[in-house]
């Protein structure tokens, strides 16, 4: 296989379609060219390896999402089990099968459309196909509702890849996270498919208005409407992820494991994750404080979300998923260490703020991350400038200290020469 691809590549060298064949060749194998001059250190952990590591961290979320799609669907129809048992009610073939037939098409469309566009652009530009889409293509199905129509997803992916990434020059040059650009496009273009109480459970949209109508409002949705008492999900449900939501975002446990995996394989920045968690907790605490001091009357429409325990913000909705897999995108995030702290903190802080104050849609993670994507270069600029200033100051102080009396200066000169 490797040999064959290599021969194909040689055959098409210099032809128009060469980038497409090169991409196939280097997709799974490391290229067989070697550098001929100078000494080079070569390691296999290239961009592709990085991408594959992230995908590996995402697979548990995807599998869980498949089981959860079935669990939410059947439970909405037959009623939630009174005595929940993991193996009897959740990890069943029925659940998994339903998940496969609803979620696998999303994955295929996302990868298919995205990679076709990447190939077209690579051929036009005449350079290698970039691996950037490998992770994006996996992230996209995980952050949208299970029943998103496939053609909408295809349109959104085309938009996100072309406008969000290729116009800026491709992978590594984009300002905005492409996966979130795709989600933002879907959200603004087709809001009825991206929010409300019908889209989170498979078939709920089709059954709406019939005798079998089912619904599955997210926890944040309940809270935004002030129905604090109406949902019956326990904290452990929220943490393990047996709740309605976008495909892959529900299980905080698996996201946490994925996050730890990314931190220990040094793919993602722990600074961004930690500071984003801190940021969201601080904002949550401020809101809890506002409620505790009775600044917010109970009839206020913000009361439900404001009185929501601050730490629970992390285990419902897409906050955890966004922090671990989206905020840490090395291209669109801050590059400097100090910048990462600021960037992460503001993501958490603004996410919870949007959650509480946005009247239309009780989820703000993707908007917060996109906003901070835009600000990341600015943050970096000021961090670097701050460092330059600090060093200039040190330089100024340093030159003042050894007062050059004539003899000593001469001596020093001799020594340095």
């Amino acid at each position, binding site marked *: 296989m490797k040999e064959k691809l290599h021969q194909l590549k040689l055959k098409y060298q210099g032809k128009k379609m060469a980038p497409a064949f090169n991409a196939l060749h280097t997709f799974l194998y490391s290229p067989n060219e070697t550098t001929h001059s100078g000494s080079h250190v070569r390691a296999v952990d290239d961009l592709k390896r990085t991408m594959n590591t992230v995908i590996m961290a995402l697979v548990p979320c995807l599998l869980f999402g498949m089981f959860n799609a079935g669990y939410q669907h059947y439970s909405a129809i037959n009623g939630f089990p009174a005595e929940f048992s993991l193996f009897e009610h959740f990890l069943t073939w029925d659940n998994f099968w339903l998940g496969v037939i609803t979620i696998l098409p999303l994955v295929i469309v996302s990868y298919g459309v995205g990679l076709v566009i990447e190939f077209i652009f690579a051929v036009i530009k005449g350079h290698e196909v970039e691996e950037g889409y490998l992770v994006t293509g996996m992230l996209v199905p995980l952050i949208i509702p299970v029943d998103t129509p496939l053609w909408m997803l295809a349109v959104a992916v085309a938009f996100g890849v072309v*406008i969000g990434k290729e116009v800026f020059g491709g992978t590594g040059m984009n300002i905005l996270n492409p996966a979130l650009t795709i989600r933002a496009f879907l959200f*603004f273009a*087709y809001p009825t498919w991206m929010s409300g109480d019908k889209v989170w459970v498979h078939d709920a949209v089709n059954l709406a208005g019939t005798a079998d109508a089912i619904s599955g409002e997210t926890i944040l949705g309940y809270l935004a409407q002030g129905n604090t008492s109406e949902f019956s999900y326990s904290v452990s449900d929220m943490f393990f992820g047996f709740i309605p939501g976008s495909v892959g975002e529900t299980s905080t446990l698996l996201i946490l494991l994925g996050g730890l995996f990314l931190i220990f394989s040094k793919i993602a920045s722990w600074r961004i994750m930690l500071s984003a968690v801190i940021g969201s907790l601080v904002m949550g605490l401020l809101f809890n404080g506002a409620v505790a001091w009775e600044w917010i009357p109970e009839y206020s429409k913000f009361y439900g979300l404001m009185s929501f325990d601050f730490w629970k913000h992390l285990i419902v909705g897409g906050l955890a998923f966004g922090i671990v897999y989206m905020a840490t995108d090395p291209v669109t995030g801050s590059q400097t260490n100090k910048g990462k702290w600021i960037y992460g903190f503001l993501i958490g802080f603004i996410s919870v703020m949007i959650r509480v104050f946005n009247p239309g849609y009780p989820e703000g993670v993707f908007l917060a991350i996109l906003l901070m994507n835009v600000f990341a270069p600015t943050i970096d600029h000021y961090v670097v400038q701050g460092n330059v200033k600090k060093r200039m100051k040190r330089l100024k102080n340093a030159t003042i200290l050894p007062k050059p009396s004539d003899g000593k200066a001469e001596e020093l000169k001799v020594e340095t020469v």
Partner: protein
Amino acid sequence: MALLSKKDANLILDPLADNNPITIQVLGICSALAITAELKASVVMSISVLFVLGVGNVVISLMRNIIPSKIRIIVQLIVVATLVIIVDQVLKAFAYELSKTLAVFVGLIITNCIIMGRFEAFALGNGPWKSFLDGIGNALGYGVILIIVGFFRELLGSGTLFGIPVLGDPIAKTGLYATGYENNGFMIIPPAALIVVGVIIWVQRSRNKALIEEA
């Protein structure tokens, strides 16, 4: 083009493509973003600007030798304001509904950079006939972009053209909507116009590489 000399013809044709006020000079963007959600509004706006810029350029050009250069901006503003009020009153009299959609943006033609820009750059230094052609050309260049943007935004965002449904009925699910197609709400909001204009700029510059600025 026996009517116009080659030089005069270029005054009209250049702003239509290679020196377009919106895509090349990047002027008049605000109104291009604000009123292009409907094709009808785009067309009316284009005609209004055509009138204001065509007549305004001639008036300024006729007065160019008697305007003291220190107060020329004020004189230009008065000329534009007069013309804009005429347009505004005509719209209110004959197309009241439309003038409500366009609302403040007709008044804001006064601040449209294209108009003051052409007065300053062209009408103050050229004769009335040339200024007239320049005004018409620039207003047409502006209008072309407005109409292209308006066409795509209305078609994709509302499924209509000039308010007439062309893709079927979204509520009764006829035509294209029967297949599950839905209107794209993103195209209705102003940021979409920015992206459509951006795509037009992209297409134009990739067809004519001479337009690409040095980085």
